[in-house]
């Protein structure tokens, strides 16, 4: 009997609508229904206690109680049955330990006068039944309310109901484990009482019972209401704006104003092409009187080669293996494969299909490097499920996911699609691994469950994708499932990544951690973006066009009184530091002195480098991933003192600015007067024209007594490069 509940359903209504059975009513105590929830609720089977891999004090339970057979066995049979003492039930270790009557490493977990104690006692008296014959089976678990709007510091009780196959329902609030995703926004007590903080925002409260999860979304709006008319008047460029404004209206916040042209130019150019605009581009764009110049700019940017290198560089972070593991030539060939596909503007579904079904030699088809690097089906599974489906399955390799529905069956069922993968040629012989290896679909091979040792049939995470006797390569079936319309996550995960890159924050964060307990900040928008991405043939450029065309993308970063605290609902643009490669390329554009990189032709841009092993103090300082790590981890986005020090004191940057062939030298040798120089410097470094005061400042610097023109230009350049306006995207 699924309870249909709508937003903010009151607690009282609930009490009448649900068939309510007293928790103490069942005469016969059942292990699954009655005992197991107590063990979970009291923390007995948590990872730090008896739930850990080898148990605690010789007593092991399955983590969070996902395996009742195992637990029943452990309690009633193991240790020669001394945990249960049928002759004198109260003397059972199962009761003496948690009540502290005999020393217990985990402290006192249970009071001797509690109803839980009574329940366990009854169960022992009744003969420790594994399953009581007439015991119903849990069919669903619900949480009410499942969504709530609260004022600052307002409280709201939660109630959880377990539904059983005999139609009965039971209030299990006292046996439910509650947890807030973000306690400062809304905290929750162990009895399910939510207390809102005093911050505008939203979060989710998770409730866990018997391996079932339910969440309650909490919205805490700004206390002062905003007249609805203000939202009606907001411009709507496309569906994105509608959905963003809807969200802002729920929270009583209003967006910042639209950004200026020069801000848009620098923002779009760095976001889409990973470079700063040239002085000429700046001038042309600012002088262009046409209404649709922003759209035309984006249309031009997505066709540039820089676009491909920029986005390939991002994907190399996620896919690129350590050359000391798989071999240098292999990494190069993988890079070429990835880069070519971004240059072709290949639809995303095709990219992923080609990648996960790749076969052939590592030097001829770079895509197979994935399977050279990740050698066992379980290693491939964690990568593929996380990157392309947004589901993190690592936990399920060893035990049921603690917060989610995923089990070891799901993990190894997914892994089974890679069970027939064959390899020929030379494998890994780190640190050189110099030979070629061939990947093919074998005729046999399987993946078995580590506990049951059962051979797993390939099974997708949800939906259907069966491998038949005629299937040549099970990976083809998986690829079909992943990219099919039934798999809404496939489109959403990539759309969320691109959204995060352009908007400064993912709708889901971390961008590849999709789960019920980590809800999107704007689910309707995520749905719409995913659908749009699918409907436009998984075209990255189309998606980027659509997002950048929205009014929301074009908002200023300066907040108003209402949205200053908003950091996740896109009511203003979120500034970010330019990423290492973009910043280095920008510096090269400014200094006019190309950097040379190992094993790369002269004039190579930082974003064209094919391995993070290429030496660059600058890129290391600004947080590119460490090539030694396996798996390589995401890069640092934040600033750090080593970065400001590097900008200030780097010998190399100092030399580049002073280079005789550099921009500063050339500008000094030019005929330009101080005000022209000011214009050039500001357009080149900040992508805008100087204000009259700024022109005056530059003029005064250049006309100081004994001022050396070239030195002054160098100093101005240095000063500008060391400001936030250069280092950040605004």
């Amino acid at each position, binding site marked *: 009997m699924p309870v249909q509940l709508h937003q903010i359903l009151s607690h009282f209504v609930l009490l009448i609508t649900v068939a309510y059975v007293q928790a103490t009513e069942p005469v016969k105590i059942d292990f699954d229904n009655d005992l197991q929830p107590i063990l979970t609720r009291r923390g007995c089977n948590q990872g730090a206690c008896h739930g850990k891999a080898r148990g605690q004090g010789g007593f092991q339970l399955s983590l969070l109680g996902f395996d009742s057979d195992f637990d029943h066995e452990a309690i009633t049979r193991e240790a020669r049955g001394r945990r249960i003492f049928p002759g004198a039930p109260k003397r059972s270790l199962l009761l003496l330990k948690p009540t502290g009557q005999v020393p217990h490493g985990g402290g006192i977990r249970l009071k001797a006068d509690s109803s839980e104690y009574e329940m366990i006692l009854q169960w022992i008296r009744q003969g420790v039944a594994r399953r009581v014959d007439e015991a119903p089976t849990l069919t669903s678990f619900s949480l009410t309310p499942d969504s709530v709007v609260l004022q600052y510091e307002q409280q709201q009780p939660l109630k959880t109901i377990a539904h059983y196959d005999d139609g009965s329902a039971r209030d299990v609030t006292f046996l439910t484990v509650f947890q807030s995703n973000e306690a400062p926004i809304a905290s929750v007590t162990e009895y399910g009482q939510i207390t809102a903080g005093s911050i505008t925002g939203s979060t989710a409260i998770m409730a866990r019972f018997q391996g079932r999860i339910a969440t309650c979304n909490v919205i805490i709006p700004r206390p002062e209401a905003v007249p609805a008319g203000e939202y009606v008047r907001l411009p709507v460029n496309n569906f994105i704006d509608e959905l963003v404004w809807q969200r802002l209206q729920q929270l009583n916040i209003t967006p910042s104003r639209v950004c200026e042209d020069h801000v848009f130019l620098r923002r779009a150019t760095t976001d889409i092409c990973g470079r700063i605009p040239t002085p000429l581009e700046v001038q042309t764009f600012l002088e262009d009187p046409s209404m649709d110049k922003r759209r035309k700019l984006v249309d031009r940017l997505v066709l540039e080669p820089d676009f491909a290198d920029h986005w390939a560089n991002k994907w190399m972070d996620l896919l690129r293996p350590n050359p000391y593991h798989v071999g240098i030539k292999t990494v190069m060939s993988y890079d070429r494969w990835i880069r070519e596909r971004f240059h072709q503007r290949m639809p995303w579904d095709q990219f992923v299909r080609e990648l996960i079904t790749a076969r052939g030699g590592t030097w001829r088809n770079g895509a197979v490097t994935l399977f050279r690097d990740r050698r066992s089906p379980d290693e491939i599974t964690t990568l593929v499920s996380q990157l392309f489906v947004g589901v993190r399955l690592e936990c399920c390799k060893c035990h049921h996911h603690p917060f989610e529905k995923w089990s070891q069956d799901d993990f190894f069922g997914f892994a089974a699609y890679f069970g027939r993968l064959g390899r020929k040629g030379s494998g890994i012989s780190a640190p050189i691994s110099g030979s070629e290896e061939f990947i093919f679909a074998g005729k046999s091979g399987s993946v078995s469950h580590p506990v049951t040792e059962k051979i797993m049939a390939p099974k997708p995470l949800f939906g259907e994708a069966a491998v038949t006797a005629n299937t040549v390569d099970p990976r083809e079936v998986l690829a079909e499932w992943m990219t099919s319309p039934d798999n809404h996550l496939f489109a959403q995960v990539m759309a969320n990544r691109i959204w995060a890159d352009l908007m400064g924050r993912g709708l889901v964060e971390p961008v590849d951690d999709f789960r019920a307990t980590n809800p999107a900040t704007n689910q309707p928008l995520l749905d719409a973006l995913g659908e749009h991405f699918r409907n436009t043939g998984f075209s990255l450029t189309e998606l980027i066009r659509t997002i950048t065309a929205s009014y929301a993308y074009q908002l200023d970063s300066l907040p108003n009184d209402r949205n200053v605290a908003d950091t996740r609902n896109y009511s203003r643009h979120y500034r970010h530091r330019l990423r290492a490669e973009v910043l280095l390329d920008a510096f090269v554009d400014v200094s006019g002195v190309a950097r040379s990189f190992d094993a790369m032709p002269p004039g190579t841009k930082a974003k064209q480098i094919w391995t993070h092993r290429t030496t660059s103090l600058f890129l290391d300082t600004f947080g590119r991933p460490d090539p030694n790590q396996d798996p390589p981890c995401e890069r640092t986005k934040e600033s750090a003192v080593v970065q400001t020090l590097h900008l200030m004191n*780097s010998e190399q940057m100092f030399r580049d600015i002073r280079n005789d062939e550099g921009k500063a030298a050339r500008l000094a040798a030019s005929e330009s007067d101080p005000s022209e120089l000011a214009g050039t410097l500001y357009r080149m470094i900040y992508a805008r024209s100087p204000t009259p005061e700024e022109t005056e400042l530059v003029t005064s610097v250049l006309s100081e007594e004994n001022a050396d023109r070239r030195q002054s230009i160098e100093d101005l350049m240095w000063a500008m490069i060391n*400001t936030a306006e250069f280092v950040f995207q605004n």
Partner: protein
Amino acid sequence: MTLRKNCEGTTRRDCLQFGIGGLFGGSLVNTLRVRGESAGVSAGPKPTAERVILIWMDGGPTHFETFDPKPDAPSEFRGEFGYAKTSIPGVLYSEHMVRLAAGLDDCAMIRSIRHSHGNHGAGNHYMMTGAPTRIPVGCGAFVSFHPSMGSVIAKERGKDNGLPPYFTTPRMSRSGGPNFLGAKYAPFVVPDNPNAEKFKVRDVALPRDLAVNRFDRRTDLRAKIDKLVRLNSEVAGDPVAAFDEYQEQGYSLVTSPDAQQAFDISKESSSMRERYGRNEFGQRCLLARRLVEAGVPFITIYDGGWDSHRNLFGALGKRLPDWDNSVATLIQDLKERGLLDTTLVMAMGEFGRTPRISTLSGTSAPGRDHWANAMSVLMAGGGTPGGTVVGSTDRKGYAALDRVLSPENLISTVYHKMGIDPGQILYTPEGRPVHLVSDPTPISELI
């Protein structure tokens, strides 16, 4: 070069190196990341220490092969090493801890710290901050839910002498970040190897050919040119605020003679350098002593590689003699300089290791696995009564037997010594109250 592919594998050099990385453990801490204010000025306990050198033994050092040998246990527990007698009759250290054993009169040994977080991510966090992780985390986790000791001490005891108040070398430990205290209290990382011929802390000195007056002119110009509007509200989460903070820090560093002096390890005599041991760890200890002299209140020496799942005896047999020498020299040298009274030196990791020798790693050379029920912590100086042994473990080293103490007790002891009230309440930028340490009881024997 071998791949670092063990359960320490996700130590994120980039994040580590840049200090602030651990601040952003995903969405959980994002809202906490703006600066917190301390609740008024609390009087705090009377300080006995002015600075701390933390030797962070990352990976979880074995208590058996360091400070808590079990010579009477069966061989599958005892291991391959013998013992060394300390200066206190009846108290034994492991075979290779010869100098520290002889110097126990200057130190305290705590053998009964325990907690229940036997994975690196959570253990690291607990021991480094005194707070358990709010949600279960895994071995590879790199999380921050609470400010680290170093960040708290930087905030409370930092001086305005141009030197960052919190150093870490060669990298930050996983949970060594400032969390809601803000980027200002993130550690300054010195990644370079002080044992290298041309050791220089890069980018902290002006470029060679840049005259000082020209640097001043540039700095002045930069201030005039910088027109980007700041968001001026901590809740706005403007990343430029951190950049400004770092720029200021960087500027003080470059212009501080004390700082420049402290980094110049070549000023030490070669005999002093020998004494510490001409290896990376030894020279880091020496660098830490120089930083202490320059007035830095918290220095972490990150000392990795204690996650001895395999080949424990082979690896530690080689490593421990040097390690013992460097740490003993550090304590001795501080004492000779009259600094030990006010400098707390401590060596510890995230947990101890399993009593039974293990081949779980699958190699023939055995090791010991993670074990949080008992661990040993070495302390010296800063008002710590010498020759103190606190607590003990059972015959096989399974569990702390008497004086069972928590990480909270340990971290409270450090704060207490530094004159910081461990029971004080901090406020996050959102105004959420947080206990500095939830159980503020220090270890009385060490006060």
